[in-house]
């Protein structure tokens, strides 16, 4: 069984920008090792010299003219989607 410590869960949560509750941390500390142990069976497969497949479309380098395409969506419509906006800008908490 893959060993996952509480610190490991917290580290992954930080990488994932997830502020988990204590209960969620406990549950993930149980679930993650089970899932990781299951997927580890892949190590049984001999993949020496096999190229990875990152995408399955047989397309490559689809070109288009470098022109501006009007998508019919205004700046105001996009700003309206933001939880908080002010003076034509999205409002965020102080960073520094």
């Amino acid at each position, binding site marked *: 069984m893959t060993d996952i410590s509480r610190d490991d*869960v917290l580290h*992954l*949560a930080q*990488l*994932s*920008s*997830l*502020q*988990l*509750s204590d209960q*969620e941390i406990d*549950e*993930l500390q149980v*679930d*993650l090792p*089970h*899932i*990781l142990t*299951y*997927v*580890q*069976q*892949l*190590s*049984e*497969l001999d*993949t020496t010299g*096999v*190229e*990875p*497949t*990152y*995408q*399955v*479309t*047989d*397309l490559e380098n*689809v070109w*288009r003219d470098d022109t501006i*395409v009007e*998508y*019919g*969506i205004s700046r105001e*419509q*996009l700003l309206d*989607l*933001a*939880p*908080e906006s002010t003076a034509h800008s*999205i409002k*965020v*908490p*102080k*960073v520094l």
Partner: protein
Amino acid sequence: MTNIAEIQSQIKASSARSVVEAALTKARDNENYHALLSFTDSRALERADKVDSGQITGRLAGVPFVVKDNFLAFGAPTTAASHMLESFQAPLQATAIEKLEAEGAICIGKANLDAFAHGGSTENSAFGPTKNAFDMSRVAGGSSGGSAVVTALHIVPFALGSDTGGSIRQPASFNGVVGVKPTYGTVSRYGVVAMASSTDTIGTFATSAADAEFIMSIISGRDARDMTTLPDFFVPQAIRPAQKIGLIKEFMSDEVDPEVRARTNEYAERLRAEGHVVEEVSLPIVQYTLAMYYIIVPAEVSSNLARYDGIRYGHRAAAPTSLGDLYGRSRDEGFVAENKRRIMIGSYVLSSGFFDAYYQQAQKARTLLIRAFNELFESYDVLLGPVTPTPAFRLGENTSDPIKMYLADIMTVPASLAGIPAISVPAGVSQAGLPIGVQLIGQRRSDANLLSLARSLEEK
């Protein structure tokens, strides 16, 4: 049965408005199934009136349909069944919807799903599960559970869904309707909430293969807004006689429900009776595909879901103390447990030190899977097998064990990872009256052949 032709004759005999009103009424009468999250009444009726006055025309003029609520659409929020997008009003529509609307079809509502399409039962919806159309104590399947159930209940003749690892085929099988997962790149994904970009596909549910084929012919094709879309190839075709069909041995093991195997064998017999050759074939690598899937997909999920940061759109936590606090709490509050589980697994398999052993190994194994499929397609036109190991399971039966839930996907993920088309076709019911589907899998761009094969059998 409610098929598109019947709806069209009803429209001719009465009006598009009365047909759309009837669909909305029927949808509300069946709200106990919780198949729909929202209704688009005012927009739908406005469009129906335009059909009746001749302002809107097309091959689907006035025909009502439903879309999974991860499709951006006008007239109702696009929630992806999550609190993250609970009040998200889409500023644009998915290309697939635009194409259907260009033919006069009318979207009447948005269907329930597992939040962000993560799941196989619709139990991960932030707004509660959808019930199976044949047994309300059982799951609808997922993640496109709502779309399957509205089709099975004959509320609409077809509904759109997305299939990343079985999310159309499995609920289609659980609810006795046709479900199509096309070749990767067949239908534009523009305006559909991204899950795993290397396997996400858009497809349809319908009550017959003939209707599914018609809808696919409309929504397929190149879209400049999704550069993975393939040039038009989806043209409905006549049945090719005497095809060679391989019944996948590994999908017929003792671990698969005997009734599921029996219905699959009966379907094989029906194919033989039509003059096709059905032989057992072996695809040993399928035993590893679920492991590949639950590495590759969480990796892509963790990347795709990084965009939900509480800044530009979606849920933002109240009174954040810092930017990090805003991100962390918005995401914790906006995602359901399964979303977080997949994001965390994705972060793990992509992190330095583990990348080669997990992610890279899975992508190499994926190459081996594709090779194995290609070898079979040198000798066989189509592969046959069940869609799921069992008929619909009970609500709550698998929710406490993620691996057990994932195992329901074991026969649908191979086609997803290989990017090849696969359809789920009704093949009868169990003794308990639960629908059982069979899966027809073909090589890239053979979608129309799979559908014509299924159509030729349903015409019997």
